[in-house]
């Protein structure tokens, strides 16, 4: 192929970054290695594609162990403080995050936003209990930010199961944002599920749903309880709806695509098909 038919470096970076960002949960390393070999240009990879690693980890709500805490945190867009550092509101620390090694280091003290901390803390309590109650290996984090006359609270949950030896991986992500102002508020949720099965094939489930609720806020604890109540209701409703869809897809849609057997209830009589057709062809030729 002529050199001028080659795409630009910019296009290569766009493609490589897209591939990285679409890696299924638990398979970032494999996709990274594939892309590295195909791009065949480590300089371009480091300079142009490195940003995609960070975007991927934040989008996946990647759990991260902190060396001095038993409770893990999450890497998200909400706790990104730039320079490759993130903060953990639970342990009041910030850390440097290595996006390739998926490791935290260089822990430093971090000061929370005093104006919103009591609300954030109350929600974190309720939310942590909720997470433990529904997600066997779930990790959650609650972030708070105050503005002039309003407050925003973001609560995230991540749970995953990685079983590459059995050729499958799955991840659940919940992201709930509450904006509180005066005595009212709005609660918005984005729920995402992704499953990848790849033994002799490539089958993926990709689901997402957006939810909205209105809130009344009294005090920190009552508001937190109200939020968690709505969250629990919405997430369970979502999970039930997914299960219902599975039922309909299998009972109705799948069955209508291909029967288990012909309407005769027995397999095709191929000899019959052939003899019938030969007869037709012979007749045609005459």
């Amino acid at each position: 192929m002529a050199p001028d038919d080659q795409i630009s470096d910019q296009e290569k970076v766009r493609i490589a970054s897209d591939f990285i960002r679409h890696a299924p949960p638990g398979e970032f390393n494999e996709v990274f290695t594939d892309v590295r070999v195909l791009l065949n240009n480590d300089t371009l990879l480091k300079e142009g594609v490195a940003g995609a690693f960070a975007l991927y980890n934040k989008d996946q709500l990647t759990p991260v162990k902190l060396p001095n805490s038993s409770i893990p945190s999450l890497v998200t867009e909400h706790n990104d403080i730039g320079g490759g550092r993130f903060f953990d509101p639970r342990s009041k620390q910030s850390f440097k995050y290595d996006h390739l090694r998926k490791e935290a280091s260089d822990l430093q003290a971090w000061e929370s936003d005093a104006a919103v901390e009591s609300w954030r803390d109350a929600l974190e309590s309720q939310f942590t209990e909720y997470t433990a109650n529904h997600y066997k290996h779930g990790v959650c984090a609650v972030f708070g930010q105050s503005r002039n006359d309003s407050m925003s609270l973001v609560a995230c949950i991540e749970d995953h199961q990685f079983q590459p030896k059995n050729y499958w991986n799955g991840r659940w992500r919940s992201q709930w944002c509450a904006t509180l102002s005066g005595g009212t508020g709005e609660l918005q949720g984005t729920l995402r599920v992704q499953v990848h099965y790849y033994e002799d094939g490539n089958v993926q489930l990709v689901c997402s749903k957006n939810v909205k609720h209105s809130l009344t806020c009294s005090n920190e604890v009552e508001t937190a309880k109200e939020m968690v109540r709505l969250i629990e209701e919405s997430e369970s409703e979502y999970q039930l709806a997914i299960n219902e869809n599975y039922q309909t897809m299998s009972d109705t849609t799948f069955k209508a695509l291909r029967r288990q057997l012909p309407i005769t209830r027995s397999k095709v009589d191929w000899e019959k098909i052939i003899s019938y057709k030969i007869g037709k062809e012979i007749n045609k030729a005459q």
Partner: protein
Amino acid sequence: MTEEQLNRALDLMRRLPPQQIEKNLSDLIDLVPELCEDLLSSVDQPLKIARDKREGKDYLLCDYNRDGDSYRSPWSNTYEPPLEDGTLPTDRLRRLEIEANAAFDQYRQMYFEGGVSSVYLWDLDHGFAGVILIKRAGDGARNIKGCWDSIHVIEVQEKSTGRSAHYKLTSTVMLWLQTSRPGSGTMNLGGSLTRQMEQDGTVSEPTSHIVNMGRLVEDMENKIRHTLNEIYFGKTKDIVNGLRSIQPLADQKQKQAFSEDLANALQKRQGKSDP
């Protein structure tokens, strides 16, 4: 280097969401143009339908009936857009191809009750090879879009006696299901499974090949259909329900502790009442 790159490219296609196969393949070819022909012939894509205006019938497109940018219709045996000297099967093979298309058209009707099928054959040194394609789109009932694509590639090695042949079948079935509803948002369950099977068959006349290929394809599709059912609606569903529990886990722990206590108590009672 190109061999390793091809392996990496195929690995990537097995991991990226199959819902974007066409975009992924197109990007991959842009990124590594040297792999273009290899990728087009080894990566299965959802089948596209074209219309044979002369014969008034639909046919399916794949790399095996492609020559340049044109595709050959199995009904008229001509290329669209027209080609001066596009690859055509030999006369003997074309006669068999006509029979095969007619036979699999009936097979399609019996199992799929709709859809489109196409069979393309090409010569090999000691036999021939072929691809049997079937595409069946759902009618969108219950607000769910579904589609089934079958790609069966078969290699027929004719024994020197001419009385038997060895059939090697590699089949990929793609199944696509998607829905968008208020309760469940957008749900997209799709992808493919690939299997291989081989067996010998007796050949008493040319059309025996169609009987042997037909039986092999039918058995293969029935097996894959069963596996698709298990993986799509069993395995992936179980994985989702393993990520989150609708029932509070504390309740479950309590229930488990309670049943363990009960079992222990019963055992103790039995111990006491034994003479």
